[in-house]
C-alpha cells in the first residue's frame, strides 16, 4: 500500500469517529427536554433520535461535497481538490483533513466530558481552519468569501453563532409565554399529558433535521479524501458505502446518548415543564428549518440551547441558571480557536515527522490516547440513564451524578 492509501484509510476511520461523536454530542439538542419532563424514558428517547438521524442521513441525497469551502480553500468550487495539493497522491490534502478531524474530535470529547453542548460543525470547521493555517498559511483560509454573499469563517460561522441563541431564545420565550397564557385555567394534569405528545412530535422533527444536515458533512469530507487519492472521480454523486457508513455512525452515536450533555441541557440550564419543552422544541425546529431554507443554516446546538434558555425566560417564576448558560457560551466562543489549535499542532507534529506515513500514524495515535484518557476520566463520575434526571443541586449524597454535578459547578474556567 502506498502512503496516500494508508492516509486515506486513516482519514475515513477518523472521519467516521468524528461522525460518531457528532451523534452523541447532539442527542441532547433534540431529546434533553423530552427526557427531563418524562415525556419519553431516556432509552426510548435516544433510540428514537438515533433512528430518525439514520432516516435523515439517508434522505440527504444531495451531494454535500463542497462542505469545507465555507471555511478553507482546499477544494475548487465544483468540489474537486485543489490541484496544487495533489502532489504525493493527495497526501498533502489528506494530512490537512486528518489533522482537522483530530482537532474536531478532541474538542467534542472534551466538551462532552464537561457536559457542555457545543457545536460539532464548529469543532470540525475549527479543526480544518487550524490545520489549513498550519499547512497553507492564512491565504488558505476563507475568512469572509468575496463579499458578494454570506460566506467564510466570519459570515457562515462566527456571526451566526453570535446571533442564533438570541433568535431561538426570543422565539422560545414568546412561545412559552403564549402557551402559559392560553392554558391558564386548564388543570395541570390535563395539560401535561397533551404537551408531552407535542414535545415528542417536535423533538422528532429536530432529530430528523439533524440527520439530514450533519451526516452530510462527514460524507463530504470522506468523499473529498477519496477524490484526492484518486479512488473516486464523480463530483455529482458519493459512493453508497460512504453514505451508509456515515448514516450508521451518526445514528449509533446518537443512540448511545451523550448523557452528560443531556443532563446539562435538560436539568442544568432550566427546570423544564412539558409546556416549556414543547415551546423550546417547536422554536428549535422552526428556526433550524427556516434558517436552512433561507440559506443561512444555524447550528442545531446553538439554536436548541437558546430555545431552552428562552423557555425559562418566558415562563414567569422559572429557574434559569445563568452561570451554566455563561459557561456554555464561553465554550462556544472558544470552540473554533481551541479545535483549531489542536488541528494546527497535530499538523505541525505530522509535518515535523516527514509529513507522511509516520506523522499520520503518530497523530492518530495521539487521538486514540487522548480519547481513551477522557473516556476513562468520565467513568469516575458516570452519567447514565439511571441518574440523568437527578436533581441538579444534588441534595442527595447517594446521587451517583453528584460528583459530575459538583465537577460542573466548581469548574469555573475551561481548559483550552
Amino acid at each position, binding site marked *: 500500500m502506498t502512503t496516500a492509501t494508508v492516509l486515506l484509510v486513516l482519514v475515513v476511520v477518523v472521519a467516521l469517529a468524528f461522525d460518531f461523536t457528532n451523534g452523541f454530542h447532539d442527542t441532547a439538542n433534540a431529546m434533553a427536554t423530552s427526557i427531563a419532563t418524562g415525556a419519553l424514558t431516556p432509552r426510548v428517547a435516544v433510540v428514537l433520535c438515533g433512528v430518525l438521524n439514520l432516516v*435523515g442521513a439517508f*434522505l*440527504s*441525497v*444531495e451531494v454535500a461535497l463542497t462542505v469545507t469551502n465555507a471555511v478553507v480553500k482546499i477544494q475548487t468550487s465544483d468540489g474537486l481538490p485543489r490541484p496544487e495539493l495533489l502532489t504525493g497522491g493527495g497526501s498533502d490534502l489528506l494530512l490537512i483533513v486528518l489533522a482537522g478531524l483530530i482537532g474536531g474530535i478532541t474538542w467534542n470529547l472534551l466538551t462532552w466530558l464537561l457536559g457542555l453542548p457545543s457545536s460539532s460543525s464548529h469543532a470540525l470547521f475549527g479543526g480544518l481552519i487550524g490545520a489549513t493555517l498550519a499547512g497553507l498559511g492564512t491565504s488558505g483560509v476563507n475568512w*469572509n*468569501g468575496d*463579499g458578494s*454573499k*454570506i460566506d467564510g469563517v*466570519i*459570515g457562515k460561522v462566527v*456571526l*451566526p453563532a453570535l*446571533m442564533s441563541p438570541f*433568535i*431561538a431564545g*426570543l*422565539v*422560545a420565550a*414568546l*412561545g*412559552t409565554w*403564549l*402557551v402559559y397564557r*392560553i*392554558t391558564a*385555567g*386548564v*388543570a395541570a*394534569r*390535563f*395539560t401535561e399529558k*397533551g*404537551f408531552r405528545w*407535542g414535545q415528542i*412530535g*417536535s423533538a422528532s*422533527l429536530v432529530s*430528523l*433535521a439533524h440527520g*439530514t444536515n450533519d451526516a452530510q458533512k462527514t460524507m463530504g469530507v470522506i468523499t473529498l479524501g477519496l477524490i484526492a487519492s484518486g479512488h473516486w472521480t464523480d463530483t455529482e454523486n458519493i459512493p453508497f458505502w460512504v453514505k451508509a457508513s456515515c448514516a450508521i455512525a451518526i445514528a449509533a452515536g446518537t443512540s448511545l446518548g451523550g448523557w452528560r450533555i443531556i443532563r446539562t441541557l435538560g436539568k442544568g440550564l432550566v427546570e423544564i415543564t412539558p*409546556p416549556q419543552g*414543547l*415551546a423550546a422544541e*417547536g*422554536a*428549535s*425546529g*422552526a*428556526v433550524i*428549518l*427556516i*434558517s*436552512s*431554507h*433561507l*440559506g*443561512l443554516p*444555524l447550528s442545531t446546538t446553538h439554536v436548541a440551547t437558546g430555545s431552552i434558555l428562552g423557555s425559562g425566560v418566558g415562563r414567569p417564576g422559572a429557574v434559569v441558571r445563568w452561570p451554566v448558560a455563561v459557561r456554555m457560551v464561553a465554550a462556544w466562543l472558544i470552540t473554533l480557536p481551541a479545535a483549531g489549535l489542536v488541528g494546527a499542532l497535530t499538523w505541525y507534529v505530522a509535518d515535523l515527522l516527514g509529513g507522511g506515513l509516520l506523522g499520520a500514524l503518530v497523530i492518530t495515535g495521539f487521538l486514540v490516547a487522548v480519547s481513551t484518557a477522557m473516556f476513562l476520566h468520565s467513568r469516575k463520575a458516570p452519567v447514565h440513564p439511571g441518574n440523568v434526571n437527578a436533581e441538579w443541586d444534588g441534595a442527595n449524597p447517594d446521587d451517583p451524578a453528584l460528583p459530575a454535578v459538583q465537577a460542573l459547578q466548581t469548574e469555573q474556567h475551561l481548559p483550552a
Partner: protein
Amino acid sequence: MHTLYLEWQAIWKILVVGLILGGGLPALFALGIRAMAYGTGGDAEDHPAGVLPAPHPVGRALAYLIFALVLLAVALGILVIVASGFGKEVSFADVYPTLQDK
C-alpha cells in the same frame, strides 16, 4: 460591513418567520389543549370544589380541527427537510407549497 448587511438581511427574516411559526405553532397547540379541556369538562379544567364544568362537544371539535392544522404544519416541515435532501426546495410563491429545484 457588506457582510454584516447581508447577514442582517437573512437574520431578520429568520427572526420574523421564526416568531410566527416557532412561537405561533406551540401557541396553536396550546389553544387545542385549551379547547380540548373545555370540550372534556369535569376535572380537565380548574373549577371550584363541587361544581364540575359540563363537557362541550364544540370544544372537542375545535380541538381536533386545531390539532389537524398543527399536524399539517409538521407535515410541511417534514416536506421541507425531505425536499432539501433531494436538492429541491419548497416554494411558497403560490399560496400553496410547490416543489422546485434549488
